[in-house]
């Protein structure tokens, strides 16, 4: 087996890894962690693996990773035969990717937390996290609209990278917190593009693109 993922099905951070692995066509083992309602991420077993108690956790041999940015980087460097998801030979593009990996971390603290609050009654300062989430969505929209003005689509360069995968889940899931995409056309079109990638997998709140299927009813 390639790696193990300690996984929670409703977590956008866990989904980043599931999505990246699916797009790279890598098989792996999942271990379900009952984050809610069981709070199993705070159990001794998980804390021994990851003292911070966050999910996901990725292990491969003796390696234990607890940060999704690190996992995405490792997945791309290990399994991406095309070398396009994390283009190490292009310093400027690589720096842009790293920039947006950092942004993705902020986004989990804003849109991600707002979602946990609205969906699972997680404690949060609702007004503050939603304001932060809107600010983050606006930041992403500005950048993606720049890319459209340049004739592009993806966050960094001419094709999808791990930055797109890192930013995708909590952007796509923001309607779970009542933050709709209607006023963000560049985000909306970029979300479609990610969902149309070969090998894409869905998660609750992000549906498959049924339009890609054969038409029935003709």
């Amino acid at each position, binding site marked *: 087996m390639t790696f193990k993922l300690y996984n929670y099905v409703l977590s956008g951070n866990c989904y980043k890894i599931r999505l990246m692995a699916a797009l790279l066509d890598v098989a792996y083992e999942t271990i379900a962690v009952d984050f809610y309602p069981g709070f199993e991420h705070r159990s001794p077993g998980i804390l021994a693996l990851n003292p911070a108690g966050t999910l996901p956790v990725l292990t491969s041999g003796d390696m234990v990773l607890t940060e999704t940015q690190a996992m995405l980087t490792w997945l791309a460097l290990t399994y991406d035969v095309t070398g396009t998801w994390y283009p190490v030979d292009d310093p400027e593009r690589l720096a842009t990717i790293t920039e947006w990996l950092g942004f993705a971390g902020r986004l989990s603290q804003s849109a991600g937390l707002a979602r946990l609050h609205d969906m699972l009654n997680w404690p949060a300062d609702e007004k503050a996290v939603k304001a932060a989430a809107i600010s983050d969505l*606006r930041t992403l*929209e*500005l950048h993606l*609209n*720049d890319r*459209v*003005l*340049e004739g592009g689509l993806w966050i960094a360069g001419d094709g999808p990278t791990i930055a797109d995968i890192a930013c995708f889940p909590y952007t796509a899931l923001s309607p779970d917190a009542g933050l*709709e995409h*209607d*006023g*963000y*056309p*560049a985000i*909306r*079109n970029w979300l*479609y593009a990610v969902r149309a990638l070969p090998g894409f997998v869905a998660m609750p709140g992000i*549906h498959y*693109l*049924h*339009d890609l*299927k054969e*038409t*029935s*009813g*003709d």
Partner: protein
Amino acid sequence: MGVGVGVRMNSVAVGLSRDLAPKRVMRAVAYGHDLAVWRDGENGLHAWDNRCPHRGMRLSHGFVRGDRLACLYHGWQYRKDGGCAYIPAHPGLEPPETIRAQTYSVIEKSGVIWVSTGNDAQGVDTGPVSEPLRSLTFFCAEAIARAAFEDTPFAGNLPQVESTGRLVAGGHPVAVLANPVTESETLIHVLTSAGVGIAAKKALSRWCEAARSVAERQAA
């Protein structure tokens, strides 16, 4: 201020043509009506009441297959004219013409999608200023949003206001179109002219964000 002032309008700008590709659907609001605006596979544009006649699900969450829009909930498919074409739970049934989505009048002009709640959507001809820059939401009333563009300096200078209602910011012509979504939310579409380079367009995009800050501070 902006294009459209003094023109008797029956239509409202709901999005930039550029931002709605074939086989895509988006939500829009026109005069308080919740709409699903979609393009079929041949680039045809449609604006419908955003409600599946079956069980009331928003059609803007649906998907386009060929020349039909389908509801995400139960997959009911509707033809371009709004008529129901297929009910997956009853595949043998040919749905009658009487089962239909409510359609609105929609056209494209100046690179903008215009919707009317009547039967003859019209658009504003913005002349050479029809190059799409971006759409963005302001959390304020329409009048405050419009005024903010005149009050926000571009590269240190306030924009000039032309007799047509258009603005000139940093030498670049700009048309601002506004769609009042609610009393406290306005969707703004900004156009410029084709000759403006990418760097200038990006600068104009940031100027729009500055105008938004001005407007939202004032509304707060």
